[in-house]
């Protein structure tokens, strides 16, 4: 088993928390993991991405080859499109519809969403809105992780345990809010 994914978003959105949760779950299951992160200048509101690879055998490269990613998981619609060269022909896209409008020349959102719908296996969801409905606006990343979990080679219980481990330091209330967001995301899409 080998599963390669690109995580995308804008600096500050919580890309690395998703990566950390998947990483903890994978290692907890005894799988091998490699996960390349972006630190430094891009974290100031720029485009950020993480390459995350899990497998039941040792993994060589920290970076995924173009055309090889099983999933592109993105917190922002336009950022999703930036990394499509990494996606395998049968790879799946899971992305939030809500744009981050911190640049003056953001393209027409309808055109962005239309471009996304061209891909064979794409699941767009309103993760930001769902997180706000749950009164946990910062948890859109956990909503997305929940949606993505339907495709990952990891048990939902392992991912929930990882979320508990990740947020445990912040108390039980924060853990249950994030698990709630995860479950909301998991219930919202039907895997194709």
């Amino acid at each position: 088993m080998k599963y390669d994914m690109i995580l995308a978003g804008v600096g500050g959105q919580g890309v690395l928390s998703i990566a950390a949760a998947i990483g903890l779950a994978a290692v907890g299951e005894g799988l091998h993991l490699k996960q390349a992160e972006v630190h430094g200048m891009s974290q100031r509101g720029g485009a950020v991405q993480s390459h995350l690879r899990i497998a039941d055998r040792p993994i060589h490269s920290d970076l995924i080859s173009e055309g090889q990613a099983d999933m592109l998981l993105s917190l922002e619609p336009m950022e999703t499109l930036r990394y499509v060269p990494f996606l395998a022909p049968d790879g799946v896209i899971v992305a939030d519809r809500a744009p981050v409008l911190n640049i003056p020349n953001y393209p027409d959102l309808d055109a962005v969403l239309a471009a996304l719908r061209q891909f064979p296996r794409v699941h767009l969801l309103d993760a930001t809105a769902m997180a706000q409905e749950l009164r946990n606006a910062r948890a859109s990343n956990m909503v997305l992780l929940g949606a993505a979990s339907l495709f990952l080679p990891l048990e939902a219980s392992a991912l929930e345990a990882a979320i508990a481990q990740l947020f445990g330091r912040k108390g039980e209330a924060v853990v249950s809010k994030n698990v709630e967001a995860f479950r909301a995301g998991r219930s919202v899409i039907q895997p194709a």
Partner: protein
Amino acid sequence: MTAFVPLGNEALAQGALDAGLSGVYAYPGTPSTEITEYIQRSPEAQARGVTSAWAANEKTAMEAALGMSYAGKRAMVCMKHVGLNVAADPFMNSAFTGVHGGLVYAIADDPSMHSSQNEQDSRFFAKFALIPAIEPSNQQEAYDAAFYAFALSEQHEIPVMVRMTTRLSHSRADVRRREPLAQNVLSLPRNLLQFVLLPAIARRKYADLLAKQDEFVADSEASPFNRYEDRPDTSLGILACGISYNYLMENFPEGCPHPVLKIGQYPLPRTLVARLVEVCDQVLVLEEGMPLVEEMLRGYPFDGGKVHGRLDGYLPRAGELNPTLVARALGREDSRPRFEVPSIVAERPPQLCQGCPHADTYRALNEALESYSKGRVFSDIGCYTLGALPPFNAINSCVDMGASVTMAKGAADAGLVPAVAVIGDSTFSHSGITGLLDAVNARSPLTVIIMDNLTTAMTGGQESAGQGHLEAIALGLGVEEEHVRVITPLPRQHQANVRVISEELAYEGVSVIVARRECIETAKRKRKG
């Protein structure tokens, strides 16, 4: 034992701790910062009393580490590649003095310049200084490299470089730890003149260093970081340095059919390299950074066309490698059609945060400069360098740490008056102070704005060495009291700030304006606790 899944930087840090580290010295800089931060946060390091404070700059850090080595203990210095330029003086000369306690220089290069001004390759520096260097290919090797480098350092009484690159520094994988070693006890060098580089002694030390070179090569031949993998298809041989070995293997899931020489320790193992070149018809050199090994193998001007790499277009001349580029060089690229990035996708460069104090300072500075011609603001390295981009378009230079003050002085000397320097509090502490002294001594007409956000923000909020002393430093250097001003960069202070800056621009001597407001990111983190 719980799983240990560190970044490459964290693996190196834990390795150093487990190898009996007594002190880490560093100035923050991407991609090296997490090595020191990991040790600062480690309960094990605290329990063992490991020294781990940030230094004013890379040179002071390296000298302090050399002092710890003099006293017999194991020390590590961490910096980014361009930081080694700042520390080049102690770096080169410590190869002459040699060490007493083990001394490791952890240098993190940033090919593709993700967060840097250039992409220089620190392996050249190791070669220049004639010291051994270890280049781990993965997180486990980064951990193991610490043990190995400290042992090598003490065996040969020589500092050893561990060269990291961005991808390894900032990528996680599982790592197995070893039994920790005890720290060294305090002891002095047997020869108390070992560190005295008077010419007569330095000449002897240089002869010693040259004499050690054959031993370093012999170590490389037997090193666990260098490995000759014999395989049948000798139409091609591949020499893969550091992390590029992984990109190579990624392209051969069923195993590479060609002989491979994996390189992780320098100087190069001559016998192993000669074997690869002799046995194989063609040789492809994969190295992250500049074509150091490729140039050596080509042996100018007798290149028989056998060696390939970055110098003949098999691989790009600049930038970091990845598995796709290596696939192309091997002629093994995946031929399936690739999704393309739609043309509507816009660039999203990094930018100053909403509410950043630097933004308020730039708005005030831009307004104060409206009556002058453009192109007179020299700046420096930090978050505030983003002031070069729209909507501010506020600065005209970013070269190296501290160059804002000295370049503004030179331009003012040439007649560009007023000239302005914009520098952060941490960068000022790092390398701005001596330049300001030059300006005071020359009475140069210069306005220095110190953007004091009370932290080293760009690298994640480390303490800044000059914190709380900036006005005292300016006064102590001889800046006149009435021209040391403090402003608070807030929207409601805008008019007052424009006035202060305008007054100092009009003064034909050295002014220092401290624009002080805490970084909103560090303030946020403090509130959260």
